[in-house]
């Protein structure tokens, strides 16, 4: 072991959840030393790509109850209602804090913060900074974090293992990507905030770094991943790249049309009723998929697959430039379409994982001292389908809560014995060194990754069927075996991105295993999990959370009850 670093709290991930957690720790107890460990520089974190907004009740004509009910209904009744209640109560305060920290929220003429409409929300409660909300939130948090001397960054450090001893988490093993050195980064609490694993699929809005790292770390430490079968397809990704075109484009009045120019969400029954383009994402992605299957998709020369049209022309250049300038820039740069003059071709694209590390409302896991927040976690805010603009706020509300709780935890908790933790980090180092430049006889990282993403697309698309999910689960298990034969060619210690890509692939394979196993166990359709062979929701048998743990011979499935509260499940119709 080259070096052992000592902190009070170790935060893994420097996006919105991780940065908010770090600031919460600094605010709770300025004496605590925080390590902010990120495999990138924090301002590169994928929060940066969020576009449309962050939800919190702001207007006199809105209510916390309405935000809570919209979220419960959006979750297809799989969200835990006490969590949702807490979330909507704390959401306004968190967005006000960001305002105080300098976030350039867009404004009404009277200087109050402006809000816009979003899918599945009954009123305008989505705060925005034009259509670069994630970018502004991330940079505001990052720059604010710089004022706290005790938040110490370990940039470009890749966490390879959680150091757990006697049921307590005492830090992480991390590869310093620049030097190639493995370090034991010790702390009496660890918060996982590494985002989701959208890169397990081939067509995704997610940046290259979204590789499920925190989920996989927890899974390999024996924790359950919860509700992993629920993955969100955003209705509007650009052809080819999958780059996100924000839901705010529809919130500002954009229309979805098929090849015949028909607003199919109005002319046909897709369950969204009068909400039309402002229905929830799961339903709109299904509607587009069905339109394409019925032969009413739009073809594009040189692009595989078919698309719908997102038509913004009637909004006019002035509104597009003031409210949706990034949408215009992205469409022009990446598909050569100016939305002022032409409709944007779009199709459903893998965007977000509702599932994640099973936590309680404090972000705490079953391992003492280990927390998770943001997309990495499944605190059960989003259930079977997340509403757009709830996730940025989720990062803030639950990042703050896990930060505050971890600060309280370390006041009481003893560290596990250091020798054992360092020993565990040494084992991680040895494993890594065995991988570096390993001349296995098998495939390259890119070949194995392609096989994985193909299996996930075929088995866990917008619509799934039992046989396909089972086949995908078997394929992922088999690919996990092939990982052992991986062929690596880069023996260098300095900024070796072949080895980090291999570590990311290993993480994605763990995430993919949990997704496919959980998906095959849910023989109903709920939220984003739409089974062609079980098209109805089945509350009698499936009103429960799915849990997948890593057993001795592979993934083990389990379940736990949903916490209802005010609202009993009812038919989800808009």
């Amino acid at each position, binding site marked *: 072991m080259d070096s052992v670093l000592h902190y009070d709290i170790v935060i893994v991930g420097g996006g919105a959840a991780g940065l908010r957690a770090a600031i919460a720790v600094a605010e709770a107890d300025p004496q605590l030393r925080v390590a902010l460990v990120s495999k*990138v*520089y924090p*301002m*590169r974190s*994928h929060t*940066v*790509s969020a576009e449309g907004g962050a939800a919190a009740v702001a207007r006199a004509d809105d209510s916390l109850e309405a935000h809570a009910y919209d979220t419960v209904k959006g979750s297809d009744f799989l969200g835990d209602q006490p969590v949702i209640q807490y979330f909507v109560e704390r959401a306004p*305060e968190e*967005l*006000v*804090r960001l*305002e*105080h*920290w*300098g976030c*350039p*929220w*867009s*404004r*009404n*003429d009277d*200087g*109050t*913060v402006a809000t816009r409409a979003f899918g599945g929300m009954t009123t305008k409660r989505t705060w925005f900074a034009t259509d*670069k909300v994630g*970018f*502004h939130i991330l*940079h505001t948090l990052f*720059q*604010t974090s*710089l*004022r706290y001397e005790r938040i110490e960054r370990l940039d470009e450090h890749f966490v390879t293992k959680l150091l757990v001893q006697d049921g307590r988490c005492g830090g992480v093993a991390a590869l310093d990507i*620049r030097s190639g050195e493995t370090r034991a980064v010790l702390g009496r609490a660890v918060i996982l905030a590494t985002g989701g694993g959208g890169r397990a699929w081939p067509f995704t809005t997610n*940046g*290259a*770094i979204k590789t499920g790292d925190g989920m996989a770390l927890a899974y390999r430490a024996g924790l359950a991943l919860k509700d992993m079968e629920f993955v969100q397809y955003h209705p509007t990704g650009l052809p*080819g*790249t999958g*780059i*996100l075109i924000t839901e705010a484009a529809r919130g500002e009045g954009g229309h979805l049309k098929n090849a015949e120019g028909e607003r199919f969400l109005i002319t046909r029954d897709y369950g969204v009723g009068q909400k039309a383009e402002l229905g929830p994402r799961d339903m709109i992605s299904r509607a587009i998929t069905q339109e394409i299957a019925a032969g009413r998709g739009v073809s594009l020369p*040189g692009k595989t697959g078919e698309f719908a049209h997102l038509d913004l022309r009637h909004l006019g250049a002035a509104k597009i430039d003031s409210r949706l300038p*990034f949408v215009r*820039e*992205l469409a022009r*740069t*990446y598909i*050569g379409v100016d939305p002022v003059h032409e409709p944007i071709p779009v199709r459903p694209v893998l965007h977000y994982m509702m599932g994640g590390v099973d936590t309680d409302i404090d972000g705490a896991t079953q391992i003492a001292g280990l927390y998770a927040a943001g997309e990495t976690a499944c605190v059960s805010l989003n259930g079977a389908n997340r509403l757009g603009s709830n996730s940025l706020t989720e990062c803030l509300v639950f990042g703050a809560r896990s930060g505050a709780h971890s600060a309280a935890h370390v006041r009481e908790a003893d560290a596990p014995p250091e020798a054992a933790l360092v020993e565990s980090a040494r084992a991680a180092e040895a494993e890594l060194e065995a991988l570096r430049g390993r001349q296995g006889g098998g495939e*390259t990282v*890119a070949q194995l990754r392609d096989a994985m993403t193909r299996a996930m697309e075929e088995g866990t698309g917008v619509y799934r069927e039992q046989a396909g999910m089972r086949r995908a689960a078997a394929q992922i298990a088999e690919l996990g075996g092939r990982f052992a034969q991986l062929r*690596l*060619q*880069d023996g*260098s*210690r*300095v*900024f*070796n*991105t*072949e080895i980090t*890509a291999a570590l990311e692939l290993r993480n994605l394979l763990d995430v993919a295993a949990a997704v496919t196993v959980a998906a095959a166990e849910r023989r109903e359709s709920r939220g984003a999990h739409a089974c062609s062979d079980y098209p109805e929701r089945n509350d009698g048998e499936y009103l429960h959370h799915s849990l997948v743990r890593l057993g001795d011979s592979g993934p083990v499935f389990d379940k736990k009850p949903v916490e209802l509260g005010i609202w009993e499940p009812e038919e989800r119709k808009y």
Partner: protein
Amino acid sequence: MAEHTKIIAVTRFDPERDDAPRSQEYEVPVQEDWKVLEALNYIKDHLDPTLSHRWSCRMAVCGSCGMNVNGEPKLTCREPLSNYGERVEVAPLANFPVVRDLVVELEGFLEKLGALKPWIMLAKQRAPEEGATRQSPAELADFKQFSMCINCMLCYAACPVVANEPDFLGPAALATAHRYNLDSRDEGAAQRAEIMRGEGGVFSCSYANECAEVCPKNVDPAGAIQQAKLANVLSWARSFVVRRRAAS
């Protein structure tokens, strides 16, 4: 989509093996609508897994993939390959220490950014219970452009002052400090003034305007620095008048 090949000449450097950077050529089958980054990713996945470069969002907002393309700093995920001929040279951003291949060291920039206190400073912190501050659309417009910096570092690679004066705080960091000074919610300008007008501060800028020309987000750091120079001169003059009045 029609395919043809281009020669991508990549600057390689591994401090464990190389004494000096070297150029390595790859023949890449490219598609017409590819960006420069897609050619690099093709090399990484299909030709040479030992190539190191940074990238993530591939939608021009995370700022990871800045490189010099044919000598000009570019965001490679945004830069069409079709802008170039049959041979394209890709090198690490100029004016930064190279870690390996196309990866440069950003520690210096982050230290400069932090030194400029890029956060809201108030004599008395606002409490969340006070609710959101009012800020008119005009007040927002005063600083919004300067808040759009993605820290891609193209401006540092282009800046002739950064090239000669490593301590120059540089375009992105100074524009960000100026952004906070202009924010109607901030009271920290006086605390940023000393470093902004000190050695390596705004007065080091020779207004070559290269930063504004290469910025992929139209931040106009040169404009921010010019404004900051003026603000600093005015505040210095004001303090002089105030001292004279106090003395008389």
